[in-house]
């Protein structure tokens, strides 16, 4: 059986695991939708009122019944109703996901646009001052947590320069691409910084490895110009690990960047799940986590496949 098929077979199993895990975890958290809605005022409820509300939120059944009801729905593509939004969970997710997707794509574009040229430049100028500078910058970039970058950016821009992109009323890209990009650029830079640093380091070391390879040396000795060797012969192979890295990183970003979304007030998937946890919106937490896990696994599968397709040396082991 080939590797991708094997991955596909465990797919449903892992999704079931994630479902059970999130279902139980969110119910173990003290407090429920009633306390989330009423706060301390829920202490004023009579037992009968409490009963009515418990039934309203679907919490009156035991966990097995609740799980089965929910899971049976999931199998039919119905993730349930969000108690805070009063809408189907799928609708809520699909309203918030485009932003997360866009943010992930923008961060990746920034990372690749900066990372690959810088990495190649550093590799071809190995051990010169310019290489050192690129490496130091990359190292520092990789070592600064995104939310710290975000905080410092907000601080520097708003206090230092008195400018800040429009926050709050979020404009979807379909409505006004320019306004949208103005809003997304800072968070994208924030998330792109560490990402770019990783790409720089990966493309540099991959390029250095390739430049050591026999076929590259042969090409050079045949008198093919250095630039041509680098761009035509070495680069495509050096990009393979970069593709893998970017893919994996992209998979993580699709899960939403909770802290960065929080700092920049972006209504992305990460904040949606966080708010759902805080408001004990069980169906939304379950649905969104399942959705994120699904995307994560799909992206990782694609990365594996791409890796195999790009690198002829890699063959998945068959058992």
């Amino acid at each position: 059986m080939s590797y991708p098929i094997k991955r596909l077979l465990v797919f449903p199993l892992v999704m079931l695991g994630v479902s059970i895990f999130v279902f139980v975890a969110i119910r173990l958290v003290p407090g429920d939708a009633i306390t989330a809605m009423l706060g301390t005022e829920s202490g004023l409820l009579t037992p009968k009122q409490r009963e009515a509300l418990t039934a309203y939120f679907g919490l009156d059944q035991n966990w097995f019944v609740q799980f089965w009801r929910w899971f049976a729905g999931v199998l039919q593509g119905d993730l349930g109703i969000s108690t805070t939004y009063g809408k189907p969970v799928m609708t809520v997710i699909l309203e918030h996901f485009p932003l997360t997707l866009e943010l992930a794509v923008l961060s990746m574009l920034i990372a690749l646009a900066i990372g690959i040229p810088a990495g190649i430049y550093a590799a071809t100028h190995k051990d010169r001052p310019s290489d050192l500078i690129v490496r130091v910058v990359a190292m520092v970039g990789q070592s600064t947590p995104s939310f710290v970058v975000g905080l410092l950016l907000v601080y520097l821009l708003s206090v230092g320069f008195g400018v800040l992109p429009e926050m709050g009323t979020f404009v979807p890209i379909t409505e006004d691409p320019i306004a949208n990009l103005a809003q997304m650029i800072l968070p994208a830079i924030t998330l792109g910084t560490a990402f770019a640093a990783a790409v720089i380091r990966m493309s540099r070391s991959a390029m250095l490895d390739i430049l050591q390879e026999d076929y590259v040396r042969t090409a050079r000795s045949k008198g093919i110009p250095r630039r041509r060797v680098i761009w035509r012969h070495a680069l495509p192979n050096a990009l393979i690990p970069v593709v893998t890295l970017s893919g994996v990183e992209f998979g993580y970003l699709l899960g939403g960047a909770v802290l960065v979304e929080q700092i920049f007030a972006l209504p992305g998937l990460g904040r949606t799940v966080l708010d759902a946890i805080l408001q004990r919106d069980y169906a939304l937490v379950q649905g969104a986590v399942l959705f994120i896990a699904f995307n994560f696994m799909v992206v990782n599968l694609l990365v594996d496949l791409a890796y195999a397709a790009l690198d002829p040396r890699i063959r998945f082991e068959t058992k």
Partner: protein
Amino acid sequence: MTALFKDVLRHPSGRIGLTLLIVFLLAGFLGKAGITPYDPLMQDRIARLQGPSSAHWFGTDLFGRDVLSRLMVGIGQSFVISFFSVGIASLLGSVLGLTAAWFSGLWDGAVMRFMDVLLAFPAILLALLIITIFGPGTWTSVLAIAIVYTPIFTRVTRGPALSLRRRDFVDAARTFGTSRSYIMTRHLALNLVAPLTVQITLALAWALVTEAGLSFLGLGTQPPNASLGLMLSDARNLMELAPWLLWVPAIALMLAVLSFNLLGDALRDILDPKTRRRLA
């Protein structure tokens, strides 16, 4: 061990990383041992929100507490959480990875699928759920971060262990007449200990960041204690009145992560048989 230490010192990133790490460990140790310029918990209502000065190098916070002293305690706290969580994660992960490889079959499947489940779960949300369930605190943070990073160690150990079990290489080496135990030890050292060491170093950096993120959301270290993330979180709404409250922990966190990353780089270069050959 001493050879490794010398190699690290010879490596430029290793040198800087190790120096930084030692500075942090020292600061953290002094902080945890209570040897700080001021009592990190002592409130001084006269000295509230003072900027850096000769008396308070990094200024004072909202309660008039000395930021340098709190930074030292915070570094200690962040490192303790980082070390313990990665310690547990690497131990647990290694045991799971090794047993999965060794017993294979159903156990292997069960372990690896469970790790897949954990991996597919968004890390910060997983940690957040665990902490909300058990209530925040140092050991809950350790537990939460350990669980988040266990799958990585399981994967890192399972691969090499699997090939060790199949002994393809053992047979290959035997034909060259080397002893069996030598082969096992050498193989383990090269293919298991090396990647594990590098992974641990990097995980220490991630754990620092995760702890900071959790504390930033108010779910990590509890006041009046300090951790780098909690200091950042406290500084957020004060950053205009007292910018040093933001800069000090931000730079400290960055440098702490940097020290592990540099060290990890150096270890990777030194321990990787490929680069090793090239260096020789």
